[in-house]
């Protein structure tokens, strides 16, 4: 697969603070790459370095296998932190300016305005836009010039649930076009829903990177409900049960490796219990994220 972005020990220090610490990342073409991390973990600083607005302290990076110049940036559509536009210009004029800088065809503007559903308001001044419209215009501006890569930094920050859903739809639509997307976010749910790969940053260091599919592999947790007075006891008798917990009237059974919900169901049936509810819980990225962060923290403690 073609490598789009490669960073090699990328480092940025602000005085005594180390914002990004020897970061090695690799993003391949067609991936939707999520950068996860709590606030202040160095996501935006990393993207700032990749986009030429922050000078790295050490290390280097390549786009498309070559050191970056401003010509490379024209092929990348990026919005960092929050939407940035000239408030006194209309949405249309702002996008025309973007197209001028990128050397893009101005005819493309109408298309991206349609994609983010801003055509109606295109001639209004940017400062009159709502936050959701600003975010959508930012995505439109990143799409002007038909970039090969899209970088979005917290694109749903501060939006209401409907706005979040809209932006997510747009991202999925763009990803379906085969564009490479780098998405920085602290919203795990968001990353899990739209990303194919992800990396976790903590205090500027990379603590994990891999495909999203792999999340949820490993031991299974099964939710069980049944009309039985001593369900807990029965469940404990099951050979494959690692532990049994009661939560909101359901029992959560953690299974040993090699055991699945089918085995549990069979076991219950043999005991003469019919489950009214039996569901395999998908391990969420959130859980994995917290686990990884905890692990990283405990590794650090002794030093």
């Amino acid at each position, binding site marked *: 697969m073609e490598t789009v972005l490669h960073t090699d020990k990328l480092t940025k220090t602000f005085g005594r603070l180390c914002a990004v610490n020897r970061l090695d990342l690799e993003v391949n073409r067609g991936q939707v790459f999520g950068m996860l991390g709590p606030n202040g973990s160095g996501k935006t600083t990393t993207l700032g370095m990749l986009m030429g607005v*922050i000078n790295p302290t050490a290390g280097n990076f390549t786009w498309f296998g070559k050191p970056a110049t401003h*010509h490379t*940036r024209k092929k990348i559509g990026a919005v960092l932190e929050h939407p*940035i*536009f000239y408030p006194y210009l209309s949405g249309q004029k702002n996008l025309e300016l973007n197209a001028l*800088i990128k050397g893009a065809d101005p005819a493309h503007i109408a298309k991206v305005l349609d994609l983010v559903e801003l055509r109606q308001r295109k001639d209004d001044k940017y400062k009159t836009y709502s936050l959701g419209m600003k975010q959508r215009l930012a995505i439109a501006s990143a799409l002007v010039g038909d970039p090969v890569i899209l970088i979005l930094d917290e694109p749903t920050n501060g939006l209401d649930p409907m706005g979040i859903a809209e932006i997510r739809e747009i991202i999925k639509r763009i990803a379906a076009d085969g564009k490479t997307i780098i998405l920085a976010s602290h919203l795990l749910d968001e990353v899990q829903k739209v990303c194919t790969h992800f990396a976790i940053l903590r205090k500027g260091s990379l603590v994990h990177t891999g495909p999203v599919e792999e999340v949820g592999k490993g031991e299974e947790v099964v939710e069980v409900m049944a009309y039985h007075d001593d369900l807990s006891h029965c469940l404990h008798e099951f050979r494959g049960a690692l532990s049994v917990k009661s939560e909101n009237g359901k029992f959560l059974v953690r299974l040993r490796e090699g055991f699945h919900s089918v085995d549990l169901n069979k076991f219950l049936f043999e005991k003469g219990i019919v489950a009214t509810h039996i569901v395999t819980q998908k391990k969420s990225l959130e859980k994995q994220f917290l686990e990884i962060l905890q692990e990283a923290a405990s590794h650090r403690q002794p030093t």
Partner: protein
Amino acid sequence: MFHLLKIDLKKLTGYRTFWVVCGLYFVTLAFTTASGMEFLKWLAGKGAEFGQDLNINRIPLYHFPDVWQNLVYISGFFKVVLAIMVVISVTNEFTYRTARQNIIDGLSRRQFLFSKILTNGLLSLMSVAMVFFIGLVTGFIYTPEIAVSDIFTDLEFFPAYLLEVFAFLSYALMLGVLVQRSGLTIILLLLSHMIEAIVKVNIPESAGFLKDFFPMQAISNLVALPFARYAFQEIQDFVAISAVVIALGWAFLFNYFSYLKLTRADI
């Protein structure tokens, strides 16, 4: 090059403040330079009240070739208005963080600065064209006997004026890039002459020649005060090469300092 100029003009032409400030600049510049005779009449009237007789027809304010230096000298006072516009234009880029977005979008830092310098050049050229036009019109109106050779005399004041405006706008651009806050930058810009004067006063007599090397002084030295000639005093009615060299040096340095700051800082 035109591409970069186009980018910066696109930012400015949609900005109402730009039109208002530039409009005020060109209108006041035009009216002030064109109303010298009215001023002389008013002066004569005041003089008459005190029993002084002033024959305004003996002051060839608008006669070729006097008109060139007279108008260029007066116009020099207005450049501060344009400079404030330049400060607003560049500090806006930092307060709105659009400079950052421009670079993310694919402008190099050098191109960003160059687009601003080009606009400065354009504004300077427009000022020159404006003053030349008013000089030409008023000259034709007030000069009793027009000789072509007189019209073409002393035109060297226009390149000098161009350099004067451009150097000062470069200075404003540099202040904006370094300070990045519009209010503070404008105050610094307005106080520049005064701050420089304070420093110059404290220079010992023996090092007096240094005074011509100070930036504000160097810019003022390009066009000397012409009006003393109407009080039968000797004036400098030419552009001194040394002044041009020093002012050129400053114009280069101002833009170079902006360049250093822009290329090295995190934006």
